C-alpha cells in the first residue's frame, strides 16, 4: 500500500527541495519500492543519482540528483526521517478512523439485532437474523447454523447466495464441536474446494443441544475481533432462541394441559360410577386412564328385564378429539342399549356405525367396540365385536380362550353389517373384555406384556370374584411395567356367572294406553296389583303407584298437552332387588332437570308443581332419555 501524498505533504516537500536546489541539486525524489511518490523540481532523472538514503522502518527512500558531497547524507537522512514520520502518522490516523467507524458500525448493528430479535420468537427468523447480521458485519459470503440434538434430526440452516453442501456444513460443525477452542479453518486444510476460509463459533442454546454457527469466505482473513464479534452475536441470538423455545414449550404445555384436562373430565364424567348387579352375575368394570388420556370407554347397563348390557371400546387417538368422539359413541351405545328396541347387540353397533360413520371419517378416526348382552334367565351371552381385543372366555372347566373380533371397527365403512355371536354359559364361567392397553403395556426394556401373561393370570385367578380378577390383572401389569409409565388407558370388564336364583322375575308387564286421565288409571292399578301379588308392602306399592300416577298425569298435560291420540306404553317389572317402572311416549320431549325440581312451599298455596317433586322424593333413581322421537322415563325403587 502506498501512503497517500496530500497537498500539505507536497508543499513541505517543495520547500525542503528548494533548499537542495540551492546547494546544487537538480532534483529530489521520495520513493517507495522503486516508485516515485513525489519529485521536485519536476524530475530530471536522466543523470545518475548522487545520493540515496533509505529508511528500513517505513520502506521509503530519498534520492538526490546533482549532489555528490557525502556531507549532505545526514541532511538527506533527516529529511527522509521527517517524511517517514509524517506519512506513518497519517496512515495511523486513517487506520484509527476506519477502526472507529467499524466499531461504531458494529455497535449499531448489534443494537439493531437486539431490537429485531425482540420482535420475533420464531426459530427460523432468529437463525436468519443471526447469519444475515454476521454476514453484514464481517463481510463473508455466507453462513450456516448446525443444531444437533440427541435422538433428533440435525438441523442445518443456511443463508447464502451460494450455499454450502449440507454435508460440508455438518462436517465443519462436527470438527469444530470436537475442539471448540479452534475457530478458524483455512483453505490449506480439509476444506472443500469452493471454500477459502471458515470461522466457527458456538451457539449457546441449551445443554442438550450442540449448536454451532459457521461463516465462510471472508475477504482477507478472519481475525480475533471477528471471533469476538461472532461470539457476541451468537450469544445474543442463543439467549433469544432459548427464550423462543421456552415460550413455545410453555404455550404447547398450556394447550396440552387444558386439552388433557378437558379430555380427562369428559372421560371421567361419562364412565359409570357404580356397576349395577343383577342376580346370577358378578360384574365388575374399571378404567385406569393413562396420563395422556386415551379414548377408552365402558359401560354396564342394567335393564328391567333379566338382562345386563355391557360395552367396552377404544376410540383411536388421544386427547380432545378422542374424548369427544368417545362421549358421542358412549351416548349412542347407552341410549340404544338401555331402551333397546333391539334384541341383538349387532343392531346397536349397526345403529352406532350408521350414526357415527361420517363423523369418524371426517376426522380420520374410528373406534373398536365390543357390546354384549347377558341373559341370565337363558344362561346366554350374546355379543358383537367390532375389532375389540382382547376378549377372553374362560369356561369353568377349560383354559382361557381368546375370542377374535368377527367384525371391523366402527366408523370405517358405513355399509358394514355387524354380527352377533352367542355363548352358552355355565356356572363359574368367566367372560373378560379388555382394551389393548393391557397386552400392549411395556416394561422399561421395551417388552410387551402380551396375551400369554394375561391368559396366565386369568387362569390362576379364576376362582376369585370379578373385582378381584380385574385387580389381579391390573396388579400384574403394573408389576411387569415397573417404572415404565402407562402409555395407554387400561379398561376391563369382568363377568362371572353364578348360579341364578330361583324365580327372580316377580312380574314383567307392558301396557299401552291413550294419554288421558281416565286411561292412566289402568297401569296404576295394574302396578298396584302386581306389587301386591309379589308380596311387596302396601307402603312401597302405594308410593310406586302414586309416582306412576304423577308421571302419567304429567305426560298427559305436558308431553301430549291433552291431545287425545297420544299413546303411552308403560312397562313395569320387578326382581328381588328393584322395581322398574318405565314409560315411553312420542310427545314433546321434557325440558326438566330432576336436580332442579323442589317441592313448593305449602304456605304459597300453589295449585301445581308438586308432581315431579313427589316422584323425586319417593323414587331411588329417575332417568330420562329422549331419542328418535321417543321419550323414556325410568323410575327405579330399591327394595
Amino acid at each position, binding site marked *: 500500500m502506498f501512503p497517500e501524498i496530500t497537498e500539505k505533504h507536497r508543499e513541505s516537500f517543495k520547500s525542503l527541495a528548494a533548499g537542495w536546489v540551492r546547494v546544487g541539486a537538480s532534483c529530489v525524489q521520495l520513493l517507495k519500492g522503486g516508485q516515485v511518490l513525489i519529485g521536485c523540481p519536476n524530475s530530471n532523472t536522466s543523470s545518475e543519482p548522487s545520493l540515496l538514503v533509505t529508511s528500513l522502518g517505513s520502506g521509503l527512500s530519498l534520492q538526490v540528483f546533482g549532489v555528490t558531497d557525502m556531507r549532505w547524507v545526514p541532511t538527506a537522512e533527516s529529511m527522509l526521517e521527517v517524511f517517514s514520520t509524517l506519512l506513518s502518522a497519517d496512515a495511523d490516523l486513517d487506520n484509527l478512523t476506519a477502526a472507529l467507524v467499524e466499531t461504531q458500525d458494529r455497535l449499531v448493528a448489534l443494537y439493531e439485532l437486539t431490537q429485531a430479535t425482540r420482535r420475533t420468537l420464531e426459530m427460523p427468523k432468529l437463525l436468519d437474523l443471526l447469519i444475515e447480521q454476521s454476514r453484514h458485519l464481517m463481510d463473508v459470503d455466507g453462513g450456516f447454523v448446525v443444531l444437533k440434538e440427541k435422538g433428533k434430526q440435525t438441523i442445518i440452516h443456511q443463508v447464502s447466495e451460494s450455499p454450502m453442501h449440507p454435508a460440508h456444513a455438518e462436517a465443519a460443525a462436527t470438527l469444530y464441536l470436537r475442539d471448540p477452542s479452534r475457530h478458524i479453518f483455512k483453505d490449506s486444510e480439509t476444506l472443500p474446494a469452493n471454500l477459502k476460509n471458515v470461522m466457527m463459533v458456538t451457539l449457546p442454546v441449551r445443554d442438550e443441544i450442540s449448536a454451532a454457527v459457521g461463516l465462510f469466505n471472508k475477504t482477507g482473513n478472519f481475525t480475533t475481533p471477528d471471533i469476538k464479534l461472532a461470539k457476541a452475536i451468537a450469544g445474543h441470538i442463543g439467549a433469544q432462541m432459548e427464550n423462543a423455545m421456552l415460550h413455545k414449550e410453555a404455550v404447547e404445555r398450556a394447550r396440552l394441559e387444558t386439552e388433557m384436562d378437558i379430555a380427562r373430565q369428559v372421560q371421567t364424567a361419562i364412565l359409570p360410577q357404580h356397576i349395577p348387579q343383577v342376580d346370577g352375575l358378578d360384574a365388575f368394570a374399571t378404567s385406569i386412564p393413562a396420563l395422556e388420556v386415551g379414548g377408552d370407554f365402558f359401560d354396564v347397563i342394567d335393564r328391567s328385564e333379566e338382562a345386563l348390557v355391557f360395552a367396552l371400546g377404544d376410540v383411536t387417538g388421544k386427547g380432545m378429539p378422542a374424548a369427544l368422539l368417545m362421549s358421542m359413541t358412549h351416548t349412542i351405545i347407552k341410549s340404544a342399549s338401555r331402551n333397546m328396541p333391539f334384541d341383538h347387540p349387532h343392531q346397536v353397533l349397526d345403529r352406532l356405525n350408521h350414526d357415527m360413520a361420517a363423523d369418524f371419517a371426517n376426522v380420520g378416526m374410528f373406534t373398536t367396540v365390543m357390546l354384549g348382552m347377558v341373559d341370565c334367565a337363558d344362561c346366554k351371552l350374546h355379543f358383537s365385536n367390532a375389532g375389540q381385543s382382547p376378549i377372553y372366555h374362560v369356561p369353568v372347566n377349560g383354559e382361557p380362550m381368546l375370542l377374535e373380533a368377527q367384525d371391523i371397527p366402527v366408523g370405517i365403512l358405513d355399509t358394514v353389517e355387524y354380527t352377533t355371536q352367542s355363548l352358552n354359559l355355565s356356572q363359574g364361567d368367566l367372560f373378560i373384555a379388555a382394551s389393548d392397553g393391557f397386552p400392549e403395556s411395556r416394561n422399561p426394556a421395551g417388552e410387551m406384556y402380551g396375551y400369554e401373561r394375561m391368559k396366565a393370570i386369568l387362569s390362576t385367578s379364576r376362582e376369585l370374584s370379578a373385582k378381584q380378577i380385574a385387580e389381579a390383572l391390573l396388579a400384574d401389569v403394573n408389576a411387569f411395567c415397573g417404572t415404565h409409565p402407562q402409555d395407554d388407558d387400561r379398561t376391563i370388564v369382568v363377568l362371572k356367572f353364578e348360579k341364578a336364583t330361583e324365580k327372580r322375575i316377580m312380574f314383567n308387564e307392558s301396557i299401552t294406553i291413550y294419554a288421558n*286421565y*281416565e286411561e*292412566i*288409571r289402568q297401569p296404576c292399578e295394574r302396578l298396584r296389583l302386581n306389587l301386591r301379588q309379589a308380596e311387596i308392602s*302396601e*307402603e312401597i306399592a*302405594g*308410593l310406586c*303407584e*302414586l309416582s306412576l*300416577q*304423577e308421571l302419567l*298425569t304429567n305426560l*298427559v298435560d305436558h308431553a301430549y298437552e291433552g291431545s287425545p291420540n297420544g299413546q303411552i306404553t308403560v312397562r313395569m317389572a320387578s326382581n328381588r332387588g328393584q322395581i322398574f317402572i318405565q314409560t315411553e311416549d312420542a310427545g314433546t320431549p321434557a325440558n326438566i332437570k330432576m336436580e332442579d325440581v323442589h*317441592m*313448593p312451599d*305449602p*304456605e304459597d*298455596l*300453589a*295449585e*301445581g308443581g*308438586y*308432581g315431579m*317433586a*313427589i316422584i323425586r*322424593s*319417593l323414587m331411588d333413581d329417575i332417568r330420562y332419555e329422549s331419542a328418535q322421537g321417543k321419550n323414556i322415563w325410568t323410575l327405579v325403587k330399591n327394595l
Partner: protein
Amino acid sequence: MSLEINSTEQIIKIAAITLKGRLDAFEAPALRKICDDYISNEFSHFVFDLTDVAMLDSAGLAVLVSVLKRTRLKNGDVRLVWPREEAASRILKLTKFDQVFVSIEKSEIVPRGF
C-alpha cells in the same frame, strides 16, 4: 230504662263434602265444579271428609288447595277429615299440607265444626 237490643245476624255457609274412592286427575274436575258452585253461592267454609278416599294425587290436592285459597280471601277456611288410607294421606304429608289444613274428627263435622 228498658233494655236496648241491637242485633246483627251472620250466616256462615258451610259445605260438607264427603268423598269416596279415587280422587285423582280424572275425578278432580268434577269436584272442582261442585266447589266452584258452592263458592259462587257464597259458601266460605268447607269440610272435606276424606275418610274413604282410597287414593289422592296432586291433581286432587290442587282442588283442595284452590278451595282453601279462595275461602281464605273471604275469611273462610277448609278443614279435612283425615283419610284412612295411607295412599291418600301420603301426598298431604309429602307436600307438608298436613301442616296447612286443619284436620278434624268425623264427629266434628257440621254444625260443631266451627
